[in-house]
């Protein structure tokens, strides 16, 4: 009898732990999901971590995990409803500009509306055009999305686009990686650019404490210097 009760207790405990909502991480252009999953598995204990590189993949699982907290970009969090921001990931270039960069000297800011522009897809198909319009006041003829940061250079170098949009902090690395002569054609208005922890109403508030205690190397994987 005692064994049965203990067994029931254990199974209830396990059920409770297993039922804990996972932490969803979606930082497009960041480290690959498997890398993030394995780095966070230990600090998060029984909570499952599910990392994504694309917003579309995150949105596919959101209905299944309505109580799951999300670590994502401030830009995407701005479009999330029913969540509140509990932590902001501090980093040096927390507010930044996005730049339209081109290797083609005939590309000018005046003519950008008729050009093909490449961008890292950090918001998903529907929201990216809204972001570009909001940040630059621009509706390009064609917007090509990529899911890996390095693919922006391939888009431009292989003439698949006339220009690309990059976050200002990424321009030095892009310049380092190419011998193309890059010119900044247009600057966006200042945009918040840092990871955040968004918790849904009635969600798991303990995640906040766990993230605050993450060691520095793990924080670096999330692109954060410290949480505020």
């Amino acid at each position, binding site marked *: 009898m005692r064994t049965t009760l203990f067994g029931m207790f254990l199974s209830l405990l396990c059920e409770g732990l297993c039922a804990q909502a996972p932490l969803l991480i979606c930082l497009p252009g*960041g*480290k*690959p999901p498997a*890398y993030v999953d394995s780095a966070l598995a230990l600090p998060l204990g029984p909570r499952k971590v599910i990392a994504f590189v*694309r917003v*579309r*993949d995150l949105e*596919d699982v959101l209905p299944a995990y309505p109580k799951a907290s999300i670590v994502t970009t401030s830009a995407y969090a701005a479009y999330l409803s029913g969540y509140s921001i509990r932590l902001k990931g501090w980093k040096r270039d927390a507010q930044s500009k996005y730049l339209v960069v081109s290797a083609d000297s005939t590309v000018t800011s005046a003519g950008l509306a008729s050009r093909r522009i490449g961008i890292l897809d950090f918001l998903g*198909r529907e929201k990216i055009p809204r972001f570009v319009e909001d940040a630059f006041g621009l509706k390009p003829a*064609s917007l*090509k*999305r*990529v*899911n*890996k*940061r*390095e*693919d922006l*250079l*391939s*888009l431009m*170098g*292989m003439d*698949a686009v006339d220009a690309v949009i990059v976050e200002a902090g990424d321009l030095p690395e892009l310049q*380092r*990686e*190419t*011998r*193309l002569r890059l010119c900044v054609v247009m600057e966006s208005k200042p945009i918040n650019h840092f990871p955040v922890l968004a918790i849904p109403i009635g969600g798991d508030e303990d995640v906040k404490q766990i993230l605050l205690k993450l060691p520095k190397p793990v924080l670096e994987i999330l692109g954060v210097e410290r949480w505020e």
Partner: protein
Amino acid sequence: MSQLLSASAAKARWSLAILILAAGCYASEKAKRLLAIMPSGESFQQAWSGMKSDLGNDYEWKTFDPDTKNAEDSLARLCSAYAPRGLVLMDNRAVSLAKRVQARDSAFAALPKFVLMTLKAEDVAKGLRNVSGIRFEVPAYAIFTQLRALSGKDFTHIGVFYRRNFSFFVEDSRRLLSREKLDLIGKCIDCDGDGSPSKDEIIKSLSKGMDAFKEAGVELVWMLPDNALVNPATLGRFWVPRFGKGNVPLVVPLANLASKQANLGLFAAYPDYFQLGVQAAQQVVHVLEEEVPAIHGFEPQISVQTTLNLAVAERLNWEIRKELLGRVGELIKP
């Protein structure tokens, strides 16, 4: 009175029928359907998943296997019943089937078609109407800009062996790499003679080519995915002896050639099928949803999947930038 009632009931029935008909017409006009003609196989499924994932709920889709019995009749029937707005053609078999159906069905011929996962896609698709697509060849530009970024090495001379049917690709690669101040030095293996060298002649030619590469200052060699140049005989007698312990890095087209067991390739670059599907989805939307439908043409594959062998890097004294290791799909640790 009963006559009046039955008249109004009849009117109501007619109105309902008209409403249903109108709703049906509206629905069929609104339905955005795609039909993918694709053989079975994991890589095709991955590309199809990428495509569906990017298109989301905006499209409905069906697939058709080109290896089906009576494929021409079945496909023609399916197309007329399903009324897709576009056709996705994966692999040569799908393209060849589409050409046969197009010859007998003008409605099919008029449908926009998207060719994927087909080598020399533009050539193979010649004769198809309303065709766009993505080239399947893994672009040298993506491979070598990524390797240069990872290593931080400022290499400039890359050697490549090729057969004449790859000339178009080598020429195009050379043009794009030159923009990055990278010089692609090609050695055609079958351009002289009758064009069909024996295995021994190929191996001899590869070895002679290496001497020429040395003189030209080639710093690394790029292996193309060509069965005539990469097979058990050439691997055993040329590639492994030359690059398994030498000091010239080899860039390979398959992950297993950069594996721990192979101990051969420093870096492998091959198609990222899922991302290829995502790229194709964007092309579909662009062609089908422009105000004035346009034919998009063929574009290069943008995203590649990579494997980096750190043991080979160590042997070659190539330092790899640790901060960029996250970009590599598969890392082979020493």
